[in-house]
């Protein structure tokens, strides 16, 4: 695991895993932009790009861990979370590694949402007339002594806040992207460049991706192999739609895939790479397409944070009055216990999300009160269904179909 922020870095011997060492004076790890130590165990946390998701995860995503997103049916919102993660990396100045089998990584980076700066954010959210800052610049009547002081420039990349908000309707400017080192992996290109390699009898695409990630981590020194680098940085890895057919894996298309272990082997080796380097990874998996549920269970056990998205698009819940405020549900299947016996998990297990006025928020699911005089049968049925839905806390449980009729 990445050493706690108070422990100081211990790369003197080029040790393969970060170890806690008596601090020789400075706590250099705390100086990495865009990270903060967790309250409980000093673990370095990154923002996932969505402040509300950070709250659900207990403060943020720990460095060295894997965030697995089970895609919703059409991939709309999981793609959005993927882009938020990468956009947060751009704003914080982290390095990016984007891997995809269906879209060119440069195209993905061109479509990242634009960050909301402080004054823009106030304007977006304020219903009433927000006083624009330009009004003050013209003429100061009372504080005229301060007229000639230099104005403080708030540059977007230097915000020290943890977690930023993004405007989905605008794309990030290319100047921001220029300052970031982005590594990309586009599967069709990589397969055509070099001959296929065999690694642990794994799917060829996964093997190439692992090699590529390991090469970047080693060359750029994220695993402490170049101790002379003064400024430490974090690598954010994003892998889109892993396990889909475009990666050459058939677990999404048949019930009895030919190789059930490729994806799990890949995740195991990736876990090893993440644990020994200053990096964090987001992977979206089309879980609804994987018919062999045993594979999803194993994938869940091998990941750290597992979040499932269920959107209401196309389902009968879209028009259901109970869910009229929300666009979908979020299921947090797993939160890791890192370096401690307990984890900071939030108490609310019924979470829903909505994309409202360009902002993506995750909230506790509130069912509206049933205020009608005559409670109709159909709404009772929906209540029973939603009561079943709200029950998953420790996991699946047996609830009868009848709901108690008072």
């Amino acid at each position, binding site marked *: 695991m990445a050493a706690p922020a108070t422990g100081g870095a211990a790369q003197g011997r080029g040790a393969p895993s970060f170890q806690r060492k008596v601090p020789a004076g400075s706590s250099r790890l705390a100086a990495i932009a865009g990270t903060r130590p967790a309250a409980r165990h000093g673990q370095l946390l990154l923002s996932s790009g969505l402040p509300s998701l950070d709250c659900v995860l207990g403060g943020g995503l720990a460095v060295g861990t894997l965030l697995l997103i089970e895609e919703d049916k059409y991939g709309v919102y999981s793609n959005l979370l993927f882009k938020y993660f990468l956009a947060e990396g751009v704003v914080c100045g982290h390095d990016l590694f984007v891997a995809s089998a269906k879209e060119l990584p440069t195209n993905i980076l061109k479509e990242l949402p634009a960050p909301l700066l402080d004054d823009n954010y106030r304007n977006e959210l304020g219903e009433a007339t927000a006083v624009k800052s330009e009004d003050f610049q013209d003429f100061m009547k009372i504080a005229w002594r301060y007229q000639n002081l230099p104005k403080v420039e708030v540059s977007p990349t230097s915000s020290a806040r943890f977690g930023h908000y993004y405007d989905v309707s605008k794309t990030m400017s290319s100047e921001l992207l220029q300052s970031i080192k982005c590594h990309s992996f586009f599967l069709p290109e990589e397969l055509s460049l070099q001959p296929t390699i065999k690694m642990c009898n794994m799917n060829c695409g996964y093997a190439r991706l692992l090699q590529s990630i390991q090469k970047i981590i080693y060359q750029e020194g994220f695993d402490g192999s170049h101790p002379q680098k003064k400024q430490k940085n974090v690598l954010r890895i994003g892998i889109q739609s892993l396990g889909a057919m475009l990666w050459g894996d058939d677990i999404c298309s048949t019930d009895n895939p030919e190789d059930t272990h490729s994806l799990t082997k890949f995740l195991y080796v990736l876990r090893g790479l993440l644990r020994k380097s200053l990096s964090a990874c987001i992977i979206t998996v089309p879980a609804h397409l994987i018919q062999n549920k*045993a594979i999803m269970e194993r994938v869940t*056990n*091998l990941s750290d944070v597992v979040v499932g998205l269920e959107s209401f698009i196309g389902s009968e819940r879209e028009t259901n009055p109970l869910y009229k405020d929300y666009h979908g549900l979020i299921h947090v299947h797993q939160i890791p216990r890192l370096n401690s016996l307990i984890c900071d998990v939030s108490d609310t297990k019924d979470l829903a999300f909505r994309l409202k006025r360009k902002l993506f928020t995750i909230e506790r699911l509130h069912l509206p009160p049933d205020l009608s005089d005559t409670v109709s049968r159909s709404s009772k049925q929906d209540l029973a269904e939603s009561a079943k839905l709200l029950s998953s806390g420790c996991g699946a449980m047996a609830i009868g179909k009848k709901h108690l009729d008072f």
Partner: protein
Amino acid sequence: MRATRARAAFPHAHVPPRRAFRPSAAAVGAAGRGAMFAELNELLNASPQRPEQGKFTLLRDTRTDGSFLVHHFLSFYLRAGCKVCFVALLQSFSHYNIVAQKLGVSLTAAKERGQLVFLEGLASCLDMLFGEEEEEQAGQPRPLRFISESTSDLRALFDFVRTSLAPAAGDAWPGRVLLLDDLGVLLSLGASPVAVLDFIHYCRVAVCSRLQGNVVVLAHGGEDSEDEENELVVTSLCHHSDLILWAEGLATGFCKDVHGQLKIIRRASLQPGGERDVLQTYQYKIQDKNVTFFARGLSAAVL
């Protein structure tokens, strides 16, 4: 004497009468010092001064994370003065080290004095895949060889366990313990269920029978799990274990004060005498340095 014989004659399963479990003062005092989970030691009737010998313990979890049991047994056996071979496949060394320090045991010190042999699965796998060529030819042991080679047996891993726990001249550790976390990873990495069962069988013979040591294995899996291979392995191990600790999530869902339920099953039916298995159920709450156990429904939040 007569009372126990009369109880054994009853045909139905022997479940001890429910009583409010109040931890003794010694347990509370020990817990205050951060020494493993003293209440669990009381429940299991185990003490570091006289650890049992030749036992196979299975740790199971369903719908929750049972890894706190692994941390308990690791610190328990290190305190008891046994030589421990820990095959940690899922987490890194520093994770276990930091938790063990909270429980009062230092893993780095134990490793340095030779009491702990730690196999970090993640690091070993990376060395094997991305390591230098010279290391391969130097004959370095590769316990996780089964991942990259087509043979799906776990012979190399068993050889590693055997050599690390072999009695060596001059070591001061009387007991031998093998700790494995966790078994589902072996299946995920391509080992067949039969190969995993063979490996466990070989380990039992080598450690429990020949060396009079203990084996503790953690396996995930529930009754309604879809993973048939995992179910096969876990069910088979259940039949062969002397002690089963089964951590389950509550059937009623998430609760802030009761994190789960622990079933302790002592397989008395395996002993000569043919008694029934003893089943005890407790609920627990995990805290920062300790886990408190209480009888069902008697959580401190409710009383």
